């Protein structure tokens, strides 16, 4: 492991590979795990492999919408990025088949809060 210094810090930062074109993030904090995020994460990993889909499955912290855990954020090229809530094994499979596979959003599980919060920009 290289030690970071003030000289090579920026170089290391720019060298970090960009996130893949398609990704799925699963909220894996205590609230998510309590609601079943472990199983959802496992389902995504296994089913994506089975279905031969190119999508990165990642873990992340809590988005704050604890009432809708387990939360899953999906980014697929050509489809708006959305957050699905109250996801279980069946819905996870549906997301892979429909959202990732055929680029269609899945009904009834989207929690669209994109117009409710501002984030501090870079």
């Amino acid at each position, binding site marked *: *492991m290289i030690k970071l210094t003030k000289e090579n810090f920026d170089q290391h930062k720019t060298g*970090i590979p960009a996130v893949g074109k398609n990704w799925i993030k699963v909220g894996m904090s205590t609230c998510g795990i309590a609601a079943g995020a472990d199983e959802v994460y496992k389902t995504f990993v296994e089913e994506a492999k089975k279905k031969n889909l190119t999508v990165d499955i990642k*873990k992340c*912290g809590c988005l*704050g919408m*604890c009432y809708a855990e387990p939360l899953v954020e999906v980014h697929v090229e050509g489809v708006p990025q959305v957050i699905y809530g109250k996801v279980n094994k069946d819905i996870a499979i549906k997301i892979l088949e429909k959202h990732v596979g055929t680029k269609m959003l899945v009904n009834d599980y*989207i929690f669209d809060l994109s117009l409710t919060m*501002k984030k501090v920009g870079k």
Partner: protein
Amino acid sequence: MDKKIVLLKDTSIGAADKTKEYYSLILNLLRDQNLQDSVQVVRVADIGFYDQGLVLKILPGQVTYGRVQESDLLPVITETIQGNKVLDRLALEPNEKQLRIVLRNCGQIDPENFDDYIAADGYAALKKVITEYKPEQVIEQLKASGLRGRGGAGYPTWMKWNFARQVKAEQKYIVCNGDEGDPGAYMDRSVLEGDPHSVIEGMMIGAYAIGASQGYFYIRAEYPLAVERIQKAIAQAYEYGLLGKNILGTDFSFDVEIRLGAGAFVCGEETALLASIEGKRGTPQPRPPYPSIKGLWGKPTVINNVETLANIPVILLKGGAWFGKIGTEKSKGTKVFALTGKIKNSGLIEVPMGTTIRDIVYHIGGGMLASKGIKAVQTGGPSGGVIPKEFLDEPVDYENLQKLGSIMGSGGMIVMDEDDCLVDIAKFYLKFCVEESCGKCAPCRIGGFQMLSLLENITSGKGTASDLAKMRRIALAMQKASLCGLGQTASNPVLSTLKYFAAEYKSHIEDKKCVAGKCRYLLNYQIIPEKCKKCGLCLTNCVFGAITGNREQGYILDPAKCTKCGRCYEVCKFKAINKG
């Protein structure tokens, strides 16, 4: 025409959700226009607006319409979807009530991935600080930001740092207080779990500013995942040379260790916390001397809350002046609240200081559960108080909450509806403090116990008119004479409910009635013969033999034998049991 997506949700409150009907209507209209292949209609679970009737959002473009009527659907399709024209009469303004500074990375990055944090500008503030700033300049930036401690008392962070900086000592310490114990509050856990590096970075900047070379994370043992993630993050920081000797090739060296709290609420108090780190029994010490002068092992020590530290990197990166523009005159920045209770969207929210309680409850929280009326909002946990619904339009900041008889506290916000009994709530919080009192000083140990027994009398129908005055006297004594914050503030929930809900206390004492139906000893159960279908379910469920009768003649409840357990009320399918 590009492919479009229409998101829809019926956000009406108190009426049946008609999202599915509208969905079919739109699908039919699209088919009529031969657009079914170029537009996808999606039912969503939450569209970010509440009580706005049918809400439609058209992507791409994020055009959002509210209170859409059936007759509007065709114009929306022909003009907005096909013609890209915005219908001003339906358009909704964005509902941007939240601003995420502390939670900027939570849910965005992988907390166990070091590079994820670096890519999100992580440790950039640290690099800037230790290569470009003198410690005094860091404190200046913090002064300009106006950041105040997020653990409860709201003491200006720059002053704390400045005191510790000015003391000459060979060894100084910085401690992160992660002993979050208020019932219903869990924002610190979420930050530690979702963005551990930001807290470490904040702590390192603090250490640089005050001249500390050693830091401690004090995290409660009930947060195993938070501890695990902080542990991993510390290990990663050591691997990359961000902790240890000569950080980033500069003269700055800093080490961090974790200490686990063993589940005592009082250890969130700073002097008790320090005693606990030193391996002693977690009891508070009189202040002064304040820890910034004489803290851990007698050395100057700064203790900052998790949320305070998570703010630091952003402030240094974007400048204190930028942060100082957010919020109200005396309370700057944002505050994370754990919004819980009788509310639809319970969870963590982060709002700029000065946001009104109404905005939080109705525009972020999505309104009340079961559409019942709101009664009060409790803030500040066991040291806080209740804010009745008359003050919903008051802005939330340190001074204003104090003026209302509550406190900001660590950020628990519990919403209560008409079914909550405020006397019972006061009893709950006081009981919590009595159980958590360390017992070192008499006002807290004895005062709390006596006040609780008075409250127990009141809620079980044995209260007398003089009890309220007695409680006020004890509360005053506890406030004046207790050693630490726990005892000084333990009576706050009682005092604030006495202030705003005196009528409720009165009805408990004089009429022996609990309007909300919570205090079980004040309830009387009765079988209403007109509604009773003589099924006998209450008889089989009453284990105390208080219900007698048979399927022909019906059933009677004997109040003398009834223990008011409420079992019959719960099992009766015909609502034939009266509670009151």
